Protein backbone atom coordinates (compact mmCIF):
# COMPACT_ATOMS: atom_id res chain seq x y z
CA UNK A 1 0.00 0.00 0.00
CA UNK A 2 1.27 3.44 -0.89
CA UNK A 3 -0.28 6.21 1.18
CA UNK A 4 0.23 9.90 0.59
CA UNK A 5 -0.34 12.37 3.42
CA UNK A 6 -0.92 16.04 2.63
CA UNK A 7 0.60 18.26 5.27
CA UNK A 8 0.18 22.00 5.67
CA UNK A 9 2.49 24.10 7.77
CA UNK A 10 0.51 26.66 9.77
CA UNK A 11 1.21 29.20 12.53
CA UNK A 12 1.01 27.63 15.99
CA UNK A 13 -1.10 30.53 17.25
CA UNK A 14 -3.55 32.44 15.15
CA UNK A 15 -2.55 35.83 16.57
CA UNK A 16 -1.57 36.91 13.05
CA UNK A 17 -1.36 40.46 11.75
CA UNK A 18 -2.79 41.93 8.58
CA UNK A 19 -0.36 43.85 6.39
CA UNK A 20 -1.31 47.16 4.70
CA UNK A 21 -1.73 45.29 1.41
CA UNK A 22 -4.23 42.94 3.11
CA UNK A 23 -2.08 39.84 3.43
CA UNK A 24 -1.80 37.65 6.51
CA UNK A 25 1.46 38.18 8.38
CA UNK A 26 2.42 35.26 10.63
CA UNK A 27 6.03 36.35 11.13
CA UNK A 28 7.36 35.70 14.61
CA UNK A 29 4.87 32.87 15.22
CA UNK A 30 6.25 29.34 15.51
CA UNK A 31 5.27 27.27 12.45
CA UNK A 32 3.89 23.78 13.11
CA UNK A 33 2.14 20.93 11.28
CA UNK A 34 -1.59 21.62 11.05
CA UNK A 35 -3.13 19.78 14.01
CA UNK A 36 -5.56 17.68 11.95
CA UNK A 37 -2.76 16.62 9.57
CA UNK A 38 -0.92 14.99 12.47
CA UNK A 39 -3.81 12.54 12.81
CA UNK A 40 -3.64 11.93 9.06
CA UNK A 41 0.08 11.13 9.29
CA UNK A 42 -0.40 8.78 12.23
CA UNK A 43 -3.26 6.91 10.54
CA UNK A 44 -1.25 6.45 7.34
CA UNK A 45 1.75 5.20 9.33
CA UNK A 46 -0.31 2.69 11.29
CA UNK A 47 -1.90 1.16 8.19
CA UNK A 48 1.36 1.20 6.25
CA UNK A 49 3.07 -0.64 9.11
CA UNK A 50 0.39 -3.34 9.03
CA UNK A 51 0.76 -3.91 5.30
CA UNK A 52 4.47 -3.28 4.83
CA UNK A 53 3.43 -0.25 2.87
CA UNK A 54 4.97 3.08 2.15
CA UNK A 55 4.09 6.63 3.20
CA UNK A 56 4.96 9.76 1.23
CA UNK A 57 4.25 13.19 2.71
CA UNK A 58 3.60 16.18 0.48
CA UNK A 59 3.45 19.80 1.48
CA UNK A 60 2.63 22.80 -0.63
CA UNK A 61 4.16 25.86 0.93
CA UNK A 62 7.20 28.05 1.29
CA UNK A 63 10.67 26.53 1.58
CA UNK A 64 10.53 26.44 5.39
CA UNK A 65 7.69 23.88 5.16
CA UNK A 66 10.52 21.34 4.99
CA UNK A 67 10.48 21.61 8.82
CA UNK A 68 7.04 19.99 8.88
CA UNK A 69 8.04 17.42 6.27
CA UNK A 70 11.11 16.51 8.36
CA UNK A 71 8.92 16.02 11.39
CA UNK A 72 6.66 13.70 9.38
CA UNK A 73 9.74 11.78 8.21
CA UNK A 74 10.92 11.52 11.81
CA UNK A 75 7.50 10.13 12.75
CA UNK A 76 8.12 7.36 10.21
CA UNK A 77 7.16 8.52 6.72
CA UNK A 78 9.44 7.15 3.99
CA UNK A 79 9.62 10.00 1.51
CA UNK A 80 8.73 13.67 1.37
CA UNK A 81 8.07 16.12 -1.44
CA UNK A 82 7.85 19.88 -1.12
CA UNK A 83 5.85 21.78 -3.71
CA UNK A 84 7.06 25.34 -3.74
CA UNK A 85 6.73 27.98 -6.39
CA UNK A 86 6.52 31.76 -6.29
CA UNK A 87 3.39 31.48 -8.45
CA UNK A 88 1.66 29.63 -5.59
CA UNK A 89 2.06 32.40 -2.99
CA UNK A 90 -1.65 33.33 -2.95
CA UNK A 91 -3.11 30.07 -4.17
CA UNK A 92 -6.49 29.16 -2.64
CA UNK A 93 -7.65 25.75 -1.42
CA UNK A 94 -9.04 24.70 -4.80
CA UNK A 95 -5.90 25.72 -6.71
CA UNK A 96 -3.70 24.00 -4.11
CA UNK A 97 -5.77 20.83 -4.48
CA UNK A 98 -5.29 20.92 -8.25
CA UNK A 99 -1.51 21.22 -7.86
CA UNK A 100 -1.27 18.48 -5.23
CA UNK A 101 -3.48 16.20 -7.36
CA UNK A 102 -1.03 16.67 -10.23
CA UNK A 103 1.87 15.84 -7.88
CA UNK A 104 0.10 12.66 -6.67
CA UNK A 105 -0.48 11.60 -10.29
CA UNK A 106 3.19 12.20 -10.94
CA UNK A 107 4.15 9.97 -7.99
CA UNK A 108 1.91 7.25 -9.42
CA UNK A 109 0.71 4.02 -7.76
CA UNK A 110 -0.92 5.80 -4.83
CA UNK A 111 -3.72 3.86 -3.13
CA UNK A 112 -4.92 6.30 -0.54
CA UNK A 113 -4.46 9.95 0.45
CA UNK A 114 -4.92 11.13 4.01
CA UNK A 115 -5.24 14.77 4.99
CA UNK A 116 -6.64 16.78 7.89
CA UNK A 117 -10.33 17.77 7.74
CA UNK A 118 -9.23 21.39 7.50
CA UNK A 119 -6.32 23.66 8.33
CA UNK A 120 -6.37 25.65 11.55
CA UNK A 121 -5.38 28.85 9.71
CA UNK A 122 -7.59 29.18 6.61
CA UNK A 123 -10.24 26.76 7.92
CA UNK A 124 -11.87 26.21 4.53
CA UNK A 125 -12.26 22.41 4.80
CA UNK A 126 -12.23 22.47 1.00
CA UNK A 127 -8.87 20.93 0.17
CA UNK A 128 -9.72 17.23 0.69
CA UNK A 129 -12.96 17.19 -1.35
CA UNK A 130 -11.40 19.27 -4.14
CA UNK A 131 -8.34 16.99 -4.19
CA UNK A 132 -10.54 13.90 -4.53
CA UNK A 133 -12.42 15.45 -7.47
CA UNK A 134 -9.23 16.47 -9.28
CA UNK A 135 -7.86 12.95 -8.78
CA UNK A 136 -11.20 11.47 -9.89
CA UNK A 137 -11.37 9.46 -6.66
CA UNK A 138 -14.10 9.04 -4.04
CA UNK A 139 -13.78 10.91 -0.75
CA UNK A 140 -14.43 10.07 2.90
CA UNK A 141 -14.42 13.24 4.97
CA UNK A 142 -14.53 13.80 8.76
CA UNK A 143 -13.24 10.30 9.44
CA UNK A 144 -13.22 9.38 13.09
CA UNK A 145 -12.30 5.71 12.79
CA UNK A 146 -10.85 3.49 10.07
CA UNK A 147 -12.26 0.00 10.65
CA UNK A 148 -10.53 -1.80 7.83
CA UNK A 149 -8.30 -0.99 4.91
CA UNK A 150 -7.44 -3.58 2.28
CA UNK A 151 -5.81 -3.36 -1.13
CA UNK A 152 -9.16 -2.59 -2.73
CA UNK A 153 -11.52 -1.19 -0.09
CA UNK A 154 -11.88 0.79 3.12
CA UNK A 155 -14.54 1.00 5.85
CA UNK A 156 -14.68 4.07 8.07
CA UNK A 157 -16.86 5.93 10.53
CA UNK A 158 -17.56 9.54 9.64
CA UNK A 159 -18.35 11.80 12.59
CA UNK A 160 -21.08 14.29 11.63
CA UNK A 161 -22.92 16.75 13.89
CA UNK A 162 -25.58 14.37 15.21
CA UNK A 163 -24.82 11.09 13.51
CA UNK A 164 -22.11 8.56 12.97
CA UNK A 165 -22.02 7.15 9.45
CA UNK A 166 -20.33 3.86 8.64
CA UNK A 167 -19.26 4.07 5.00
CA UNK A 168 -17.30 1.83 2.72
CA UNK A 169 -15.46 2.90 -0.38
CA UNK A 170 -13.38 1.46 -3.15
CA UNK A 171 -9.72 2.48 -3.41
CA UNK A 172 -8.03 4.72 -4.40
CA UNK A 173 -9.68 7.19 -2.04
CA UNK A 174 -9.11 10.49 -0.21
CA UNK A 175 -9.69 10.39 3.57
CA UNK A 176 -9.85 13.49 5.79
CA UNK A 177 -9.13 13.10 9.49
CA UNK A 178 -10.80 14.64 12.52
CA UNK A 179 -9.12 15.17 15.91
CA UNK A 180 -8.74 12.05 18.04
CA UNK A 181 -8.76 9.64 15.08
CA UNK A 182 -5.72 8.20 16.85
CA UNK A 183 -2.87 9.35 19.08
CA UNK A 184 -0.09 10.84 16.95
CA UNK A 185 3.34 9.57 17.97
CA UNK A 186 6.25 11.75 19.01
CA UNK A 187 9.35 11.32 16.88
CA UNK A 188 12.41 10.14 18.83
CA UNK A 189 15.53 12.29 18.96
CA UNK A 190 17.39 9.51 17.18
CA UNK A 191 14.90 9.60 14.32
CA UNK A 192 14.95 13.38 14.16
CA UNK A 193 18.74 13.27 13.82
CA UNK A 194 18.55 10.49 11.26
CA UNK A 195 16.18 12.30 8.90
CA UNK A 196 17.85 15.70 9.23
CA UNK A 197 20.06 14.94 6.23
CA UNK A 198 17.45 13.13 4.14
CA UNK A 199 17.06 15.11 0.92
CA UNK A 200 13.59 16.47 0.18
CA UNK A 201 12.95 17.13 -3.51
CA UNK A 202 11.26 20.43 -4.34
CA UNK A 203 8.82 20.51 -7.23
CA UNK A 204 7.67 23.69 -8.90
CA UNK A 205 4.46 24.20 -10.85
CA UNK A 206 6.04 23.11 -14.14
CA UNK A 207 7.40 19.93 -12.51
CA UNK A 208 3.82 18.73 -12.03
CA UNK A 209 2.86 19.80 -15.54
CA UNK A 210 0.81 22.87 -14.65
CA UNK A 211 1.06 26.58 -15.34
CA UNK A 212 -0.34 29.64 -13.59
CA UNK A 213 -3.34 29.70 -15.93
CA UNK A 214 -4.45 26.29 -14.58
CA UNK A 215 -4.89 27.55 -11.03
CA UNK A 216 -8.38 28.86 -11.58
CA UNK A 217 -8.65 32.07 -9.63
CA UNK A 218 -12.26 31.21 -8.84
CA UNK A 219 -12.10 33.09 -5.54
CA UNK A 220 -10.31 36.31 -4.73
CA UNK A 221 -9.85 37.67 -1.24
CA UNK A 222 -10.39 41.37 -1.77
CA UNK A 223 -10.11 42.50 1.83
CA UNK A 224 -8.93 41.29 5.22
CA UNK A 225 -9.68 43.08 8.47
CA UNK A 226 -9.39 42.22 12.15
CA UNK A 227 -12.68 41.27 13.82
CA UNK A 228 -14.71 44.27 15.01
CA UNK A 229 -13.94 44.97 18.68
CA UNK A 230 -16.69 43.85 21.03
CA UNK A 231 -18.53 46.69 22.76
CA UNK A 232 -16.94 47.16 26.15
CA UNK A 233 -18.50 45.04 28.82
CA UNK A 234 -19.95 45.77 32.20
CA UNK A 235 -18.57 44.29 35.41
CA UNK A 236 -21.16 43.38 38.01
CA UNK A 237 -19.98 43.76 41.57
CA UNK A 238 -21.41 43.12 45.03
CA UNK A 239 -21.98 39.95 47.04
CA UNK A 240 -23.00 36.74 45.29
CA UNK A 241 -26.76 37.29 45.67
CA UNK A 242 -26.52 40.89 44.43
CA UNK A 243 -24.38 39.81 41.47
CA UNK A 244 -26.62 36.98 40.25
CA UNK A 245 -29.81 39.02 40.72
CA UNK A 246 -28.35 41.93 38.74
CA UNK A 247 -27.07 39.60 36.00
CA UNK A 248 -30.35 37.72 35.53
CA UNK A 249 -32.23 41.03 35.57
CA UNK A 250 -30.05 42.32 32.72
CA UNK A 251 -30.39 39.11 30.72
CA UNK A 252 -34.18 39.12 31.09
CA UNK A 253 -34.47 42.84 30.26
CA UNK A 254 -32.39 42.45 27.10
CA UNK A 255 -34.54 39.41 26.17
CA UNK A 256 -31.53 37.12 26.16
CA UNK A 257 -33.34 34.85 28.64
Amino acid at each position, binding site marked *: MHAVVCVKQV*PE*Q*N*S*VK*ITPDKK*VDASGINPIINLFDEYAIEEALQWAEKSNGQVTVISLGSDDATDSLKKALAMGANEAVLISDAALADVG*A*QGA*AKVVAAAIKKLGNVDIVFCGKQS*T*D*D*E*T*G*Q*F*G*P*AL*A*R*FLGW*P*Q*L*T*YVFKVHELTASSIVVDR*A*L*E*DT*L*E*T*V*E*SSLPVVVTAVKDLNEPRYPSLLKIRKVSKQPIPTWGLSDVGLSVGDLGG*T*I*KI*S*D*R*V*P*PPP*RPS*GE*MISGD*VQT*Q*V*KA*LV*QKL*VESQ*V*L
Partner: protein
Amino acid sequence: MASGVWVLIEHKGGQLAAISKELLGKGKELADALGQPLGALVLGDSTGGLVEQAFAAGAAKAYVVEDAALANYTTDGYVAAAKAAIEAHQPEVLLTGSSLQMRDLTGALAAELGTGLAPDVTGIKVEGGSVQAMRPSHGANVINTLSFGEARPMIASVRRQVGQPIQGAGSGEVVKVAMPQVTIRTKVRKVEERTGAVNLADAMVIVSGGRGLGSPDNYTKLIPELARVMGGTHGASRAIVDAGWIAYERQVGQTGKTVAPKLYVACGISGAIQHLAGMRSSNTIVAINKDADAPIFKVATYGIVGDVNEILPALTAEVQTKTGK
Protein backbone atom coordinates in the same frame (compact mmCIF):
# COMPACT_ATOMS: atom_id res chain seq x y z
CA MET B 1 -26.41 33.54 -19.26
CA ALA B 2 -26.55 32.32 -15.73
CA SER B 3 -29.56 33.53 -13.79
CA GLY B 4 -31.18 32.66 -10.47
CA VAL B 5 -30.21 32.39 -6.85
CA TRP B 6 -30.63 28.82 -5.65
CA VAL B 7 -30.77 27.35 -2.19
CA LEU B 8 -29.89 23.69 -1.75
CA ILE B 9 -32.64 22.36 0.49
CA GLU B 10 -31.66 20.24 3.47
CA HIS B 11 -34.48 18.12 4.85
CA LYS B 12 -35.20 15.40 7.33
CA GLY B 13 -38.41 13.39 7.74
CA GLY B 14 -40.16 15.44 5.05
CA GLN B 15 -39.45 18.75 6.80
CA LEU B 16 -37.28 21.60 5.57
CA ALA B 17 -34.30 22.17 7.87
CA ALA B 18 -34.23 25.48 9.74
CA ILE B 19 -31.04 26.44 7.87
CA SER B 20 -32.82 26.07 4.52
CA LYS B 21 -35.60 28.44 5.58
CA GLU B 22 -32.99 30.96 6.72
CA LEU B 23 -31.13 30.59 3.43
CA LEU B 24 -34.30 31.10 1.38
CA GLY B 25 -34.69 34.39 3.28
CA LYS B 26 -31.09 35.36 2.53
CA GLY B 27 -31.43 34.07 -1.03
CA LYS B 28 -34.48 36.29 -1.60
CA GLU B 29 -32.43 39.35 -0.59
CA LEU B 30 -29.68 38.41 -3.04
CA ALA B 31 -32.15 37.49 -5.78
CA ASP B 32 -33.99 40.82 -5.44
CA ALA B 33 -30.72 42.76 -5.48
CA LEU B 34 -29.61 40.92 -8.63
CA GLY B 35 -33.08 41.12 -10.24
CA GLN B 36 -33.22 37.33 -10.55
CA PRO B 37 -35.62 34.63 -9.35
CA LEU B 38 -35.14 32.57 -6.18
CA GLY B 39 -34.96 28.83 -6.72
CA ALA B 40 -34.88 25.84 -4.40
CA LEU B 41 -32.77 22.83 -5.35
CA VAL B 42 -34.43 19.77 -3.85
CA LEU B 43 -32.52 16.48 -3.89
CA GLY B 44 -33.74 13.24 -2.33
CA ASP B 45 -35.49 9.92 -2.76
CA SER B 46 -38.84 11.22 -1.60
CA THR B 47 -39.36 14.95 -2.01
CA GLY B 48 -43.15 15.12 -1.60
CA GLY B 49 -44.24 18.19 0.37
CA LEU B 50 -40.80 19.78 0.33
CA VAL B 51 -41.43 22.00 -2.68
CA GLU B 52 -44.57 23.47 -1.08
CA GLN B 53 -42.55 24.24 2.03
CA ALA B 54 -39.85 25.84 -0.12
CA PHE B 55 -42.46 27.96 -1.92
CA ALA B 56 -43.96 29.03 1.41
CA ALA B 57 -40.48 30.09 2.48
CA GLY B 58 -39.97 32.29 -0.58
CA ALA B 59 -38.84 30.16 -3.55
CA ALA B 60 -40.43 30.95 -6.92
CA LYS B 61 -39.14 27.78 -8.56
CA ALA B 62 -38.18 24.36 -7.28
CA TYR B 63 -35.70 22.22 -9.21
CA VAL B 64 -36.24 18.64 -8.15
CA VAL B 65 -34.04 15.61 -8.63
CA GLU B 66 -35.82 12.62 -7.12
CA ASP B 67 -34.15 9.24 -7.24
CA ALA B 68 -33.70 6.19 -5.01
CA ALA B 69 -29.92 6.71 -5.28
CA LEU B 70 -30.36 9.89 -3.23
CA ALA B 71 -31.86 8.13 -0.19
CA ASN B 72 -28.60 8.48 1.73
CA TYR B 73 -26.16 11.29 1.23
CA THR B 74 -23.17 10.24 -0.85
CA THR B 75 -20.74 12.68 -2.40
CA ASP B 76 -20.93 11.02 -5.82
CA GLY B 77 -24.73 10.87 -5.88
CA TYR B 78 -25.33 14.40 -4.65
CA VAL B 79 -22.60 15.99 -6.78
CA ALA B 80 -24.03 14.28 -9.87
CA ALA B 81 -27.62 15.34 -9.09
CA ALA B 82 -26.68 18.95 -8.28
CA LYS B 83 -24.45 19.17 -11.34
CA ALA B 84 -27.22 17.90 -13.64
CA ALA B 85 -29.67 20.53 -12.37
CA ILE B 86 -27.05 23.30 -12.49
CA GLU B 87 -25.93 22.50 -16.01
CA ALA B 88 -29.52 22.31 -17.27
CA HIS B 89 -30.70 25.56 -15.65
CA GLN B 90 -27.54 27.68 -15.08
CA PRO B 91 -28.04 29.46 -11.75
CA GLU B 92 -25.88 32.45 -10.87
CA VAL B 93 -25.59 31.65 -7.14
CA LEU B 94 -25.96 28.47 -5.08
CA LEU B 95 -26.29 28.71 -1.29
CA THR B 96 -26.02 25.73 1.04
CA GLY B 97 -25.81 25.36 4.79
CA SER B 98 -22.42 24.78 6.38
CA SER B 99 -23.10 21.44 8.02
CA LEU B 100 -20.29 18.92 7.57
CA GLN B 101 -22.26 17.07 4.90
CA MET B 102 -22.72 20.34 2.96
CA ARG B 103 -19.02 21.17 3.39
CA ASP B 104 -18.27 17.70 1.93
CA LEU B 105 -20.60 18.36 -1.00
CA THR B 106 -19.67 21.95 -1.85
CA GLY B 107 -15.90 21.31 -1.80
CA ALA B 108 -16.38 18.53 -4.33
CA LEU B 109 -19.08 20.25 -6.39
CA ALA B 110 -17.11 23.48 -6.82
CA ALA B 111 -14.04 21.52 -7.97
CA GLU B 112 -16.18 19.40 -10.29
CA LEU B 113 -17.73 22.52 -11.89
CA GLY B 114 -14.52 24.57 -11.77
CA THR B 115 -16.40 27.29 -9.94
CA GLY B 116 -15.66 29.39 -6.85
CA LEU B 117 -16.64 28.35 -3.34
CA ALA B 118 -16.88 30.67 -0.34
CA PRO B 119 -16.86 28.17 2.54
CA ASP B 120 -18.54 28.63 5.93
CA VAL B 121 -19.50 32.27 5.43
CA THR B 122 -20.93 34.57 8.08
CA GLY B 123 -22.31 37.07 5.59
CA ILE B 124 -23.14 37.38 1.89
CA LYS B 125 -24.42 40.39 -0.03
CA VAL B 126 -24.60 42.11 -3.40
CA GLU B 127 -22.26 45.10 -3.55
CA GLY B 128 -22.15 47.22 -6.73
CA GLY B 129 -23.77 44.38 -8.69
CA SER B 130 -21.29 41.75 -7.49
CA VAL B 131 -21.71 39.07 -4.86
CA GLN B 132 -19.38 39.32 -1.87
CA ALA B 133 -19.04 36.89 0.98
CA MET B 134 -17.51 37.37 4.40
CA ARG B 135 -15.81 34.61 6.32
CA PRO B 136 -13.60 34.42 9.38
CA SER B 137 -10.29 32.56 9.31
CA HIS B 138 -7.33 32.16 11.67
CA GLY B 139 -9.55 31.46 14.65
CA ALA B 140 -11.73 34.48 13.90
CA ASN B 141 -8.69 36.78 14.05
CA VAL B 142 -9.13 37.66 10.38
CA ILE B 143 -12.37 38.57 8.61
CA ASN B 144 -11.98 37.97 4.87
CA THR B 145 -14.04 39.50 2.08
CA LEU B 146 -14.31 37.10 -0.84
CA SER B 147 -15.25 37.91 -4.41
CA PHE B 148 -15.82 35.41 -7.19
CA GLY B 149 -14.19 34.88 -10.57
CA GLU B 150 -16.15 34.51 -13.79
CA ALA B 151 -17.29 30.90 -13.33
CA ARG B 152 -20.93 30.27 -12.38
CA PRO B 153 -22.60 29.41 -10.14
CA MET B 154 -20.93 31.19 -7.27
CA ILE B 155 -21.24 28.73 -4.38
CA ALA B 156 -21.34 29.65 -0.70
CA SER B 157 -21.84 27.43 2.34
CA VAL B 158 -23.48 29.63 4.93
CA ARG B 159 -23.61 29.43 8.72
CA ARG B 160 -26.76 29.48 10.82
CA GLN B 161 -28.45 32.79 11.64
CA VAL B 162 -27.08 34.64 8.60
CA GLY B 163 -30.53 34.78 6.96
CA GLN B 164 -34.03 35.44 8.30
CA PRO B 165 -36.84 33.06 7.26
CA ILE B 166 -39.75 34.46 5.26
CA GLN B 167 -43.24 33.43 6.39
CA GLY B 168 -46.17 32.46 4.20
CA ALA B 169 -44.92 33.29 0.72
CA GLY B 170 -46.89 31.97 -2.27
CA SER B 171 -46.71 29.13 -4.73
CA GLY B 172 -44.23 28.41 -7.49
CA GLU B 173 -43.24 26.31 -10.45
CA VAL B 174 -41.79 22.80 -10.17
CA VAL B 175 -39.03 21.88 -12.61
CA LYS B 176 -38.06 18.18 -12.68
CA VAL B 177 -34.51 17.18 -13.53
CA ALA B 178 -33.62 13.57 -14.33
CA MET B 179 -30.99 11.87 -12.19
CA PRO B 180 -27.98 11.25 -14.43
CA GLN B 181 -26.20 7.91 -14.73
CA VAL B 182 -23.57 7.81 -12.03
CA THR B 183 -21.41 5.20 -10.32
CA ILE B 184 -21.58 5.81 -6.59
CA ARG B 185 -18.30 4.55 -5.23
CA THR B 186 -19.11 4.81 -1.54
CA LYS B 187 -21.78 2.87 0.26
CA VAL B 188 -23.41 3.99 3.49
CA ARG B 189 -23.64 0.87 5.64
CA LYS B 190 -25.16 2.38 8.71
CA VAL B 191 -26.24 5.75 10.09
CA GLU B 192 -26.72 5.99 13.80
CA GLU B 193 -27.53 8.82 16.15
CA ARG B 194 -24.37 9.62 18.06
CA THR B 195 -24.65 8.70 21.69
CA GLY B 196 -24.34 11.89 23.66
CA ALA B 197 -24.27 13.83 20.40
CA VAL B 198 -24.49 17.53 20.87
CA ASN B 199 -25.03 20.05 18.14
CA LEU B 200 -23.32 23.02 19.74
CA ALA B 201 -23.44 24.98 16.47
CA ASP B 202 -27.25 25.10 16.59
CA ALA B 203 -27.66 25.87 20.32
CA MET B 204 -29.12 29.28 21.24
CA VAL B 205 -27.59 29.20 24.72
CA ILE B 206 -24.30 27.56 25.66
CA VAL B 207 -22.93 27.35 29.21
CA SER B 208 -19.27 26.32 29.16
CA GLY B 209 -17.04 25.30 32.02
CA GLY B 210 -13.28 25.45 32.43
CA ARG B 211 -10.51 24.62 34.83
CA GLY B 212 -11.70 27.23 37.32
CA LEU B 213 -14.39 24.74 38.39
CA GLY B 214 -11.65 22.76 40.12
CA SER B 215 -12.92 19.25 39.45
CA PRO B 216 -14.93 17.16 36.97
CA ASP B 217 -17.54 16.63 39.69
CA ASN B 218 -18.13 20.36 39.97
CA TYR B 219 -18.56 20.54 36.19
CA THR B 220 -21.10 17.71 36.17
CA LYS B 221 -22.97 19.14 39.14
CA LEU B 222 -23.14 22.77 38.02
CA ILE B 223 -22.74 23.33 34.28
CA PRO B 224 -25.43 21.08 32.68
CA GLU B 225 -27.99 22.26 35.25
CA LEU B 226 -27.41 25.96 34.54
CA ALA B 227 -27.52 25.18 30.80
CA ARG B 228 -30.83 23.36 31.31
CA VAL B 229 -32.57 26.18 33.18
CA MET B 230 -31.29 28.65 30.59
CA GLY B 231 -32.73 26.49 27.82
CA GLY B 232 -29.40 25.59 26.27
CA THR B 233 -26.65 23.05 26.23
CA HIS B 234 -23.24 22.78 27.89
CA GLY B 235 -19.77 23.20 26.43
CA ALA B 236 -16.20 23.13 27.66
CA SER B 237 -12.75 24.63 27.31
CA ARG B 238 -9.93 22.68 25.71
CA ALA B 239 -8.13 22.45 29.07
CA ILE B 240 -10.80 20.29 30.67
CA VAL B 241 -11.37 18.22 27.52
CA ASP B 242 -7.65 17.47 27.44
CA ALA B 243 -7.80 16.68 31.16
CA GLY B 244 -10.51 14.13 30.43
CA TRP B 245 -13.32 15.81 32.41
CA ILE B 246 -15.66 15.82 29.45
CA ALA B 247 -15.85 14.51 25.85
CA TYR B 248 -14.26 16.34 22.92
CA GLU B 249 -17.77 16.79 21.46
CA ARG B 250 -18.25 19.60 23.95
CA GLN B 251 -15.08 21.52 23.19
CA VAL B 252 -15.50 25.11 22.07
CA GLY B 253 -12.52 26.73 20.38
CA GLN B 254 -10.16 26.66 17.48
CA THR B 255 -9.63 22.90 17.54
CA GLY B 256 -13.18 22.21 18.74
CA LYS B 257 -16.45 23.81 17.69
CA THR B 258 -16.96 27.38 16.56
CA VAL B 259 -20.19 28.70 18.04
CA ALA B 260 -22.15 31.94 17.98
CA PRO B 261 -25.19 31.48 20.23
CA LYS B 262 -27.48 34.22 21.50
CA LEU B 263 -25.99 33.72 24.97
CA TYR B 264 -22.62 32.24 25.90
CA VAL B 265 -21.78 31.80 29.58
CA ALA B 266 -18.08 31.11 30.30
CA CYS B 267 -17.62 29.69 33.80
CA GLY B 268 -14.11 29.40 35.20
CA ILE B 269 -12.63 29.85 31.72
CA SER B 270 -9.66 32.20 31.52
CA GLY B 271 -10.10 32.86 27.80
CA ALA B 272 -7.07 31.53 25.93
CA ILE B 273 -6.84 32.77 22.32
CA GLN B 274 -7.87 29.34 21.12
CA HIS B 275 -11.08 29.43 23.20
CA LEU B 276 -11.96 33.02 22.23
CA ALA B 277 -11.58 31.99 18.58
CA GLY B 278 -14.52 29.62 18.99
CA MET B 279 -17.00 31.87 20.80
CA ARG B 280 -16.17 35.54 20.38
CA SER B 281 -18.94 36.14 17.85
CA SER B 282 -21.60 35.09 20.37
CA ASN B 283 -24.28 37.71 20.79
CA THR B 284 -24.13 38.16 24.56
CA ILE B 285 -21.19 36.80 26.56
CA VAL B 286 -21.26 36.34 30.33
CA ALA B 287 -17.93 35.62 32.02
CA ILE B 288 -17.53 34.36 35.56
CA ASN B 289 -13.95 33.99 36.78
CA LYS B 290 -12.03 34.57 40.00
CA ASP B 291 -9.16 36.34 38.20
CA ALA B 292 -10.21 39.91 37.37
CA ASP B 293 -7.43 40.09 34.77
CA ALA B 294 -8.53 36.99 32.83
CA PRO B 295 -8.68 37.70 29.06
CA ILE B 296 -12.25 36.35 28.91
CA PHE B 297 -13.45 39.64 30.47
CA LYS B 298 -12.18 41.53 27.40
CA VAL B 299 -14.89 39.93 25.26
CA ALA B 300 -17.58 39.71 27.95
CA THR B 301 -20.83 41.67 27.78
CA TYR B 302 -21.29 41.07 31.52
CA GLY B 303 -18.52 40.01 33.87
CA ILE B 304 -18.58 38.71 37.42
CA VAL B 305 -15.37 38.31 39.38
CA GLY B 306 -15.78 35.51 41.88
CA ASP B 307 -15.72 31.80 42.66
CA VAL B 308 -17.78 29.90 40.08
CA ASN B 309 -18.56 27.17 42.59
CA GLU B 310 -20.30 29.72 44.79
CA ILE B 311 -21.88 31.77 42.03
CA LEU B 312 -23.30 29.04 39.78
CA PRO B 313 -25.74 27.45 42.26
CA ALA B 314 -27.06 30.91 43.13
CA LEU B 315 -27.29 31.83 39.44
CA THR B 316 -29.15 28.61 38.59
CA ALA B 317 -31.64 29.26 41.39
CA GLU B 318 -32.15 32.87 40.33
CA VAL B 319 -32.72 31.94 36.67
CA GLN B 320 -35.26 29.33 37.82
CA THR B 321 -37.08 31.89 39.94
CA LYS B 322 -37.20 34.47 37.17
CA THR B 323 -38.07 32.19 34.24
CA GLY B 324 -39.97 29.44 36.03
CA LYS B 325 -37.88 26.57 34.60
